[in-house]
């Protein structure tokens, strides 16, 4: 079958429609470029497709995950750590779980909206502790873009003047829930600072979008557009210019290159027909996600680029990192028999603990922040599960023996409802040479595209950090008079560290840098080897600080896109 070749030459083709692709589309179309966007998944409209306000009993599964929606059947995200027909492999004895969301907007549809700027130190870690590498840019280079997205997209938070957790342009944060104040009390007694979290959820109307209505279900997609997702905030202004064309179900196979060594378009599989299509463009922007972008480059081999496009350094696929993570839940007898009230609030916690430690006094580098949860949440599959783990001393001084049956159990369920809290640590992994992805020499996906093979190893840096998380969470639970619901994980259990990829903050693989021998992109996220090829997803990240990556993907994507627009204006590309 012949490849269907379009004769139209677009100014820009963007692969991907999430944070990086959506931002590139907005900036470039508004700067006058005609843009074609390729999205491997389905069309998604938050107004039409949101499952906001569904009750668990509207489905016989009661909200449980299904293979197509691995965060629960009401979650907005179409995707998961496994996709039918789209395998990946891992090196023997190693584990990396790769999460892919196949829909317009990608993972911005169901992320946690935690929007933390990287701090000044995060861009120069090697200079500070000798590990990893410095970025080719500084906080000051990125600050104006953080400011722009704060103003345009909006988020709530509080200015605290912390040296490495920069202030922003915040809307007022929502009041904490009562149990969050209890956590704050205990946390501060242990000298751990607990402050309002920073979420890209509006508490005041902004740019035509309404304030939050506090149903607490951002992950189901907000039909009111009160939180950030690419399809609700970035795609609409790009479409309004009439210069954006979106092609869904378009799985990119290869970036094509002309005789001049410049990128000249993208070949993609139309998943509806199974046929290959080729589109032409003067500039190619990859925003397919760190690993998918690396895969696309490695699969774009030609006589000029035998190791894959942009890969003369051999660095494509290298320096892959995810966030470290572990969690513990605790049963807090003081919270038993709580006063009934609606504490849904904004999605996620209203408070968090930014990194507070002093590495001089610790046995691991870098740090983590703590996310919290608990309280009287909407019942779903798993609610009040594991009741036999609830043990301890009740407030009345009567011991609680978790378990049982009958009237006693039914009353216990009522008393226990809303009486647990949860802590999750999210920490910085140091890039290491044993964690990377490459093309599997034997395996292809259902369209014949060679797939990724992952290599993954934690080092002592991460394991000691996660041990510290577990000890800290347990100390807070005890300080609250509670009992952890699970025992302290052992060294053999990696202190409870989640497998690589499970926190879904994977970045790196096409890192930026000043030296073309050790990096794929320059300081403008432009390929050293190919001046009309750019990357705007998490791929360019040199390190992976403990600040959830989306806000920095957006800021860096905006900076890169403005650079592209200026280069176009100057006729430099």
């Amino acid at each position: 079958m012949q490849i269907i070749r379009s004769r139209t030459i677009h100014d820009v083709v963007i692969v991907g429609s999430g944070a990086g692709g959506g931002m590139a589309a907005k900036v470039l179309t508004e700067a006058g470029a005609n843009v074609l966007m390729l999205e491997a998944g389905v069309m998604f409209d938050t107004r039409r497709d949101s499952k906001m306000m569904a009750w668990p009993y509207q489905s016989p599964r009661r909200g449980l995950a299904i293979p197509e929606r691995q965060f629960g059947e009401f979650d907005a995200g179409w995707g998961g750590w496994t996709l039918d027909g789209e395998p990946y492999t891992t090196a023997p004895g190693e584990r990396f779980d790769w999460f892919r969301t196949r829909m317009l907007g990608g993972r911005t549809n169901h992320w946690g909206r935690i929007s933390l700027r990287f701090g000044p130190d995060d861009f120069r870690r090697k200079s500070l502790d000798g590990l990893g590498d410095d970025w080719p840019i500084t906080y000051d280079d990125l600050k104006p873009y953080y400011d722009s997205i704060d103003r345009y997209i909006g988020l709530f938070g509080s200015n605290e003047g912390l040296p490495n957790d920069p202030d922003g342009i915040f809307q007022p944060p929502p009041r904490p829930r009562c149990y969050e104040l209890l956590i704050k009390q205990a946390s501060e007694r242990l000298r751990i600072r607990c402050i309002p979290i920073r979420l890209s959820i509006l508490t005041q109307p902004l740019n035509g979008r309404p304030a939050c209505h506090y149903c607490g279900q951002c992950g189901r997609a907000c039909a009111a557009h009160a939180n950030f997702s690419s399809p609700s905030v970035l795609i609409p202004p790009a479409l309004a210019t009439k210069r954006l064309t979106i092609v869904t179900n378009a799985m990119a196979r290869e970036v094509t290159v002309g005789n001049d060594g410049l990128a000249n378009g993208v070949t993609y599989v139309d998943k509806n027909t199974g046929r290959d299509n080729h589109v032409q463009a003067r500039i190619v922007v990859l925003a397919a996600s760190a690993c998918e972008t690396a895969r696309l480059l490695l699969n774009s081999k030609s006589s000029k680029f035998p190791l894959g496009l942009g890969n003369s350094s051999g660095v494509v696929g290298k320096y892959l990192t995810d966030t470290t993570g572990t969690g513990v839940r605790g049963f807090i007898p003081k919270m038993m028999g709580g006063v009934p009230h609606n504490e849904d609030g904004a999605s996620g916690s209203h408070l968090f603990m930014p990194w507070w430690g002093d590495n001089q006094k610790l046995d691991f580098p870098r740090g983590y922040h703590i996310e919290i949860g608990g309280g009287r949440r909407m019942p779903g599959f798993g609610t009040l599960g594991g009741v036999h783990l609830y043990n301890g001393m009740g407030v009345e001084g009567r011991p609680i023996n978790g378990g049982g049956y009958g009237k006693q159990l039914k009353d216990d369920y009522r008393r226990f409802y809303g009486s647990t809290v949860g802590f999750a640590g999210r920490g910085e992994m140091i890039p290491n040479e044993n964690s990377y992805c490459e093309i599997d020499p034997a395996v292809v996906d259902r369209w014949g595209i060679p797939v990724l093979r992952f290599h993954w190893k934690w080092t002592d840096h991460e394991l000691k950090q996660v041990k510290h998380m577990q000890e800290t969470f347990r100390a807070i639970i005890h300080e609250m008079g509670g009992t952890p619901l699970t025992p302290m994980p052992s060294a053999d259990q990696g202190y409870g560290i989640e497998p690589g990829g499970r926190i879904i903050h994977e970045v790196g693989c096409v890192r930026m840098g000043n030296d073309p021998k050790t990096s794929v992109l320059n300081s403008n996220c432009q390929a050293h080897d190919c001046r009309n090829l750019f990357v705007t997803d998490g791929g360019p990240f040199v390190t992976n600080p403990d600040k959830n990556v989306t806000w920095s993907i957006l800021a860096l994507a905006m900076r890169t896109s403005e650079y592209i627009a200026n280069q176009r204006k100057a006729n430099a590309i």
Partner: protein
Amino acid sequence: MKRRDVLKILLSAPAATMVWTDAEAMQAVSAAQTARAAAEPFVPKFFTATELRLVRVLADIVIPKDERSGSATDAGVPEFMDFMMIEQPARQVAMRGGLAWLDRECQLRFDKMFLDCSGAQRTAVLDDIAWPAKAQPEFAHGVAFFNSFRDLTAAGFWTTRMGIDDLQYLGNRSVARWNGCPDAALKKLGVSYD
């Protein structure tokens, strides 16, 4: 967008949710409801007729009817469990084997199946497996089964309208202004906004 328009969208949400629910899933729910309404016997897809009788009795022992709400069978828990066994086949052997363990234990002690035992006899067996912290090691398999059965009963019960009302969950609604938690809730935990 104006507040009025937002509310319009929110109000239309329940209807919109019908679109995404699997036809199959909705069928299962309405089939269970219709069957109950018409008093037609529910035809399980996983449980045998005998197993279903045991499941009904056991689920109601776990969550009985009381002054505040109905029992597990009133909330359709056995039908929910049957659906889950088909939905997640990995649960099947443990469920079937656990029910068999219970009958076998009753046979050993009383020469009767669980359903034929007296209330006191049933209680004697359940008391040995219902509190993991004080259970004897020889009952470990019974404990594991009962933990799992209790959790599934809870999942099926507390996610129904009846269960949600019983728990007095007051959310999943549009709130014009978030004021935090009421004074009574703050006071109970000994915290404040000052």
